[in-house]
């Protein structure tokens, strides 16, 4: 599992959803959690150093989660950052697009604490393998 000291960036245009994700992360032991309400704000925070893990909503105004993912993967400093996309829709075409863009995990709303924990564990394993290769 991720080190609880990992800096987590939670990105969602809905405050309620940011609160839900943050609450679950705190229950899972994470202590350093920042929030952003769209991809642009998240990008600025990520570039300024707050980024060991990004959990981002897909559908947001200004800069979507997918656009943020593409920017992160194209940036030499952030390219290896673990990235989870959260969305209310899970159609094959969307999942394929997210995978192609380099997403580590795809979380479908609604999700429980256990559901998010499983996705985080899976992401951690995937990233460990990727970074040791």
């Amino acid at each position, binding site marked *: 599992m991720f080190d609880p000291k990992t800096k987590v960036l939670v990105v969602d245009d*809905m*405050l*309620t*959803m940011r*609160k*839900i994700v943050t*609450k679950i992360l705190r229950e899972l032991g994470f202590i350093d959690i920042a929030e952003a309400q769209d991809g642009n704000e998240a990008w600025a925070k990520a570039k300024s150093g707050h980024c060991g893990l990004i959990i981002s909503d897909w*559908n947001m105004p200004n800069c979507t989660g997918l656009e943020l993912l593409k920017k992160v993967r194209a940036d030499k400093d952030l390219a290896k950052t673990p990235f989870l996309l959260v*969305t*209310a*829709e*899970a*159609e094959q075409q969307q999942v394929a697009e997210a995978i192609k863009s380099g997403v580590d995990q795809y979380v*479908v*709303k*609604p*999700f*429980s604490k256990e*559901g998010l924990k499983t996705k985080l564990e899976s992401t951690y394993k995937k990233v460990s393998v990727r970074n040791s290769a």
Partner: protein
Amino acid sequence: MIAENIFFCVEKHENHLIVKFSKNPESSDLQEFESQLESISGHYIILDCDTLIEANRDFIRVLLKLHLATKKDNKFLKFINVSPSLLTFFKKESLDTTFRMAHNLTDALSEIGVVPKRSISADFIDSFLQSTTKVLKIQADIDVSHGRFEVTKNQENGICDVSGVIGIICNNFNGSVIISFPEKTFLNVLSKMLGDEINELSSENMDGAAELTNMIFGQAKSILNEKGFGLKMAIPSVVLGKPESFLSLHAGSAILIPFNSSEGHFFLRIGLSA
């Protein structure tokens, strides 16, 4: 009107043509009709067969020619008001699968895509029932049950204090889904979702209604699109109370489904565009 003959007339519309027959054709009528094929074949064509009782082989030959010409242009013919005797003839000639038929003009236009199909199927309602139950259970640990649903034309029915609204654009119809809560129910549901007691509705927490609507719509969309409904992505919003602008926007007939739970009651309203 782009062509007229005693046997037929052609009405030109923006996206389609309607060909109306006034009687069973004679050979001179068919020659005239055939001479017009080139000018009408590049459109969606609705053939109104209301006055046709039968068709001879020459007429069928011309119709097949028109069918192939429209198909070549990626358009199609749609037969409406086909009499039982004409349908029997088409079947006998094995043409009932070649020629596309619709019950009436409205159905034909909706199949062409000129007007939306105005129907909400059982599949459609069921997917929203399943999704609502699942979302409330997983995200808020609330068991819900639904009551008997009704069709309503009253634009205020089921609209409570806090409503999450999302537009529906799909192959069958355009409309909206509204999930509407009395304030007390909404605050109880939100408290369960956040794990904190929320006692007051505020600009900061009302987006919870939009998020719930988003999740319910997203779940239903996945189910329905596997069945070919073609729902498009949409952005939810929140409405407080019953502003006139909101009610008038959702004034068409709607399916109203009451839900009950330990945290209070709420409504799901699936409406057709007015």
